[in-house]
């Protein structure tokens, strides 16, 4: 970075070229009063308080005047003092004087300015206008907007517009009546606000402030427990309670930004419904018991069953260390490979598909590369709801000139920013993508050079495109051919291009084919192995990447080392000092079938809720009821845990140390902020206790740091990961050794396949398993709400409920009219597998013939309806498409 030197008040200042005078001053410890400046935002120079004089030029607002070499800046002259005083006084006269009861007391920019320039009480009182009291908006569950304290600096307006691209707030009216408000002057709760709280975090005065404002007595850096983005959090605690949460500006991913769940969704941690003592079921009722008794019972029961009768369900919400311990317990103690977790229901096709084409099933590139990309193809991802902080980055990239193609059966929020929106029918992704690829090939827009050098199987693939004529694709997908051509040309000619996908691609009986179609298009356009390119599956849970990496899967040990390869089996047998099974275990969906067949009799479940999350949930309930012994380990008594024989209270992420691996393979620390609630214990500790009571060695860990060391010694891709290194480095796997700095971009030299080449996969179009017919004429697809997470075990414990409190079946106005339904009407949604009651929401967002539901609400358990037909390769059930009908209640 080039440096320049100049003087402020005669002192020599060195600053980076391009810095403004204000930035240079602040960096050098010189205070210049300012209100509308915020380091995250473009300066606008509207508050006029940061006036400085550049000698021989005159007065300038320092926040938007670049520092130039050799200029002489003065911050104090009689003229500056005069101008600044008038400006400040005009703001102060209209501001309440009750600083002591204001939450921003001691942390308020206006207070700082008043203090700096000195205020004459008599003079101010003379200027004071008759009080104008504007109503305070308390509608939002998490924050208050008090317009009486607003100084019209516009930081909130610019944050909302430029940082998170929601644009809820703007200046309204004019002159003395100017106010920051929402469209139509509505309460914030009724506006389009998404409650991210970014404006609250930046408000320089007490105008936008959180409702709960205890000052924490200590703070600790950790990682957000919600989605796979892995934002850095700073949790504040006081006594044994978590009282605040804010974004970590030093975190490389979110740089201080958060979404509503990360910023405000921490109420679950100290919630009174948390499990705090072990429970055992006696005569159908839970009774409290001691740890000793519970663990003895479990150890005794587990010892009476062999491997074939045992299954473990691990958890993508738990840490890497806990998943490692869980799979080690399953394999080394119980002698079976039947361990799986919810990744089976979300990204199993990514692991299976991308392993075939690229040799490694993970996001190929990194989140921060989004800002430099030239085109973004978002297919089957409702990014603003499920991965909000990535959505901020996508929207900002679009503003910087990147093209955005959105393909989704629903007109999701991201469409507002899209250049091209392809609203295809659910389950027709292969046809859509192959159609686009055929255009790219026919128009000669593919990357010949890249394909020749780095790929194989192109000829076979090319001939498989022949079937995907525009006529055919238009008919299958319902997307107009012009849009298909436009999308093809845009993606192929704006490079580098990043492709993002999520559950819309994977949760199909042809999910693996869908994933292969995304890898084909990346190979075809050469968008892989380079910065700002790639195939980027967005992982749903905070640690679903890590749970897969650490072997909570039935066919692989940690680091995707196959259980049926003898050399690998021997390596683990030696390390764990035991005999291991070489037979791959059963997958999530197969497990419940096997229970019903009477083969599996014991279930040990950590942090999962399959009764709500599994497709065709009534099948799961039937299976669980048939178990001989069921241990559930969780932070709440979930819908599934109610069926357990023993319930063990686990500690939440705030009460333990560990690591999470985010969607871009970045391993990040989770740090203990408070002691475990009640008698709860971290999951790793509980599993180790059981193992030890069963007389097994290799579970004598006293801290997760020791577990990570064992992980690193056995898992090549985590070889260079240690707690010590994570203190100083951002590490993305593969990170094979202590000197390796991690791998932000995969496949840059060669692919991880046997031949080292990216493999094109010929594809055919396969319709979804269950299509609409006369009895079930509508397609049901599943979606997520921004305000809830998964089965809402954590998010339905506080203010988030006020933002969304029930299931709403989204239905197109035409379908609603044909069925004679009105908005908010209660209906029955019926599929071949079940009936669910819910209210409807009539909206254009859904296309005709397609309805959508979330699965956050246990009272309307959507997964009673969904289809458990599975993808033959990845074994993922088809939660995205099933046939239903709607009846009035």
């Amino acid at each position, binding site marked *: 970075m080039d440096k320049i030197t100049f003087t402020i008040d005669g002192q020599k200042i060195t600053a980076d070229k391009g810095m403004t005078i204000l930035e240079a001053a602040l960096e050098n410890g010189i205070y210049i009063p300012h209100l509308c400046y915020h380091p995250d935002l473009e300066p606008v120079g509207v508050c006029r308080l940061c006036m400085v004089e550049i000698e021989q030029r005159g007065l300038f607002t320092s926040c938007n005047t670049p520092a130039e070499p050799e200029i002489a800046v003065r911050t104090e002259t009689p003229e500056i003092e005069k101008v600044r005083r008038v400006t400040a006084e005009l703001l102060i006269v209209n501001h309440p004087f009750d600083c002591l009861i204001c939450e921003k007391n001691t942390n308020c920019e206006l207070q700082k300015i008043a203090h700096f320039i000195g205020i004459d009480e008599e003079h101010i009182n003379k200027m004071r206008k008759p009080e104008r009291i504007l109503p305070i908006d308390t509608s939002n569950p998490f924050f208050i907007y008090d317009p009486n304290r607003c100084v019209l600096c516009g930081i909130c307006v610019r944050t909302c*517009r430029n940082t998170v691209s929601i*644009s*809820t707030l*703007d*200046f*309204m009216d004019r002159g003395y009546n100017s106010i920051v408000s*929402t*469209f*139509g002057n509505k309460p914030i709760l009724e506006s389009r606000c998404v409650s991210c709280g970014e404006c609250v975090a930046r408000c320089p005065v007490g105008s936008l402030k959180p409702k709960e404002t205890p000052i924490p007595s200590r703070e600790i850096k950790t990682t957000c427990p919600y989605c796979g983005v892995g934002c850095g959090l700073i949790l504040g605690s006081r006594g044994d309670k978590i009282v605040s949460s804010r974004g970590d500006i030093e975190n490389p991913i979110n740089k201080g930004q958060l979404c509503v769940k990360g910023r405000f969704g921490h109420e679950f941690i100290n919630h009174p419904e948390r499990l705090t003592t072990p429970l055992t079921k006696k005569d159908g009722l839970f009774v409290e018991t001691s740890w000793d008794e519970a663990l003895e019972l479990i150890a005794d029961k587990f010892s009476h069953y062999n491997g074939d009768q045992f299954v473990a369900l691990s958890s993508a919400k738990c840490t890497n260390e806990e998943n490692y311990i869980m799979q080690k317990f399953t394999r080394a103690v119980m002698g079976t490979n039947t361990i799986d977790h919810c990744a089976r229901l979300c990204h199993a096709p990514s692991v299976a598909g991308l392993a075939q084409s690229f040799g490694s099933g993970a996001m190929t590139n990194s989140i921060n590369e989004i800002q430099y990309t030239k085109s973004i193809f978002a297919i089957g991802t409702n990014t603003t709801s499920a991965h909000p902080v990535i959505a901020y980055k996508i929207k900002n990239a679009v503003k910087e000139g990147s093209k955005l193609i959105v393909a989704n059966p629903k007109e999701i929020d991201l469409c*507002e920013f899209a250049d091209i929106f392809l609203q295809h029918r659910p389950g027709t992704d292969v046809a859509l993508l192959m159609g686009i690829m055929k255009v790219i090939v026919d128009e000669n827009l593919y990357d010949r050079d890249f394909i020749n050098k780095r790929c194989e199987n192109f000829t076979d693939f090319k001939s498989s495109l022949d079937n995907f004529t525009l006529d055919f694709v238009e008919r299958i997908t319902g997307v107009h051919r012009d849009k298909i051509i436009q999308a093809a040309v845009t993606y192929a000619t704006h490079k580098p291009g990043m492709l993002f996908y999520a559950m819309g691609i994977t949760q199909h009986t042809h999910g693996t084919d869908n994933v292969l179609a995304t890898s084909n298009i990346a190979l075809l356009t050469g968008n892989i192995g380079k910065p700002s390119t790639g195939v980027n599956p967005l992982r749903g849970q905070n640690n679903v990447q890590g749970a897969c990496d650490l072997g909570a899967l039935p066919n692989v040990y940690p680091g995707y080392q196959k259980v049926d390869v003898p050399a690998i089996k021997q390596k683990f047998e030696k390390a764990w000092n035991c005999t291991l099974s070489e037979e791959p275990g059963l997958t999530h969906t197969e497990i419940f079938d096997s229970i019903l067949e009477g083969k599996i009799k014991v279930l040990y479940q950590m942090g999962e809720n399959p009764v709500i999350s599994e497709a065709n949930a009534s099948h799961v309930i039937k299976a669980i009821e048939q178990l001989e012994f069921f241990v559930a380990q969780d932070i709440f008594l979930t819908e599934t845990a109610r069926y357990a024989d023993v319930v063990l209270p686990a500690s939440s992420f705030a009460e333990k140390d560990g690591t999470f691996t985010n969607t871009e393979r970045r391993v990040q620390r989770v740090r203990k902020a408070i002691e475990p609630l009640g008698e709860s214990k971290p999951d790793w500790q509980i599993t180790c206790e059981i193992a030890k009571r069963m007389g097994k060695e290799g579970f004598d860990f006293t801290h997760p740091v020791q577990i990570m060391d064992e992980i690193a010694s056995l898992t090549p891709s985590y070889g260079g990961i240690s707690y010590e290194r994570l203190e100083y480095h951002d590490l993305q796997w593969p990170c094979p050794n202590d000197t390796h700095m991690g791998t932000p971009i995969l496949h840059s030299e060669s692919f991880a396949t046997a031949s080292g080449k990216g493999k094109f996969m010929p594809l055919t179009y396969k319709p979804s398993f269950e299509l609409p017919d006369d009895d079930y004429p509508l397609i049901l697809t599943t979606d997520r709400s921004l305000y809830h997470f998964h089965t809402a075990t954590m998010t339905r414990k506080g203010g988030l409920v006020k933002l969304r409190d029930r299931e709403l079946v989204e239905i197109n106005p035409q379908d609603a009219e044909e069925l004679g339904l009105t908005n908010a009407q209660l209906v029955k949604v019926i599929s071949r597998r079940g009936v669910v009651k819910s209210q409807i929401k009539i909206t254009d967002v859904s296309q005709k013939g397609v309805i959508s539901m979330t699965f956050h609400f246990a009272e309307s358990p959507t997964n009673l309806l969904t289809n458990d037909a599975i993808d033959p390769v990845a074994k993922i059930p088809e939660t995205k498409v099933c046939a239903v009908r709607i009846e009035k209640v």
Partner: protein
Amino acid sequence: MEERLKKIFSSYTGKQHELIPILQHTQNEYGYLPENIMLDIAGFIRVPESRVYSVATFYGQFRFTPKGKKHVMVCRGTACHVRGAPRILEETEKLIGIKEGETSPDLEYSLETVACIGACGLAPNMMVNDVTHGRLTNKKIHAIFVRKEKGESDEK
């Protein structure tokens, strides 16, 4: 989207700088700027709805409530003010039962104040639709607004 609005949009290209002409055109057509129409305008020119509302509220020419059949404008210009406009406004509000800036629920009346209607010689003034009433007194106002009760016209 309403046909009327589609017709308005047909004379524009959907660029951001067309916002104010579209708002004017819409107000000419509808008499005010209904909220749902402003949402459609925001979508048409692809700017946030809050921006549309911000621009619309900045200018005095835009209104957000429908005009009554009789749109009353009480002049608050200097001359009128000196000659008792505040009392005229107060009396008018009492008579027609709505406050400044409001529209009666039956859409019969709407009331606003204006800075000057350019008839200072006749102060205090008001306009009801296109008709100017000057040298107002309370008595005269009563004569203008005989609240119709049995279907008779209230404007003499």
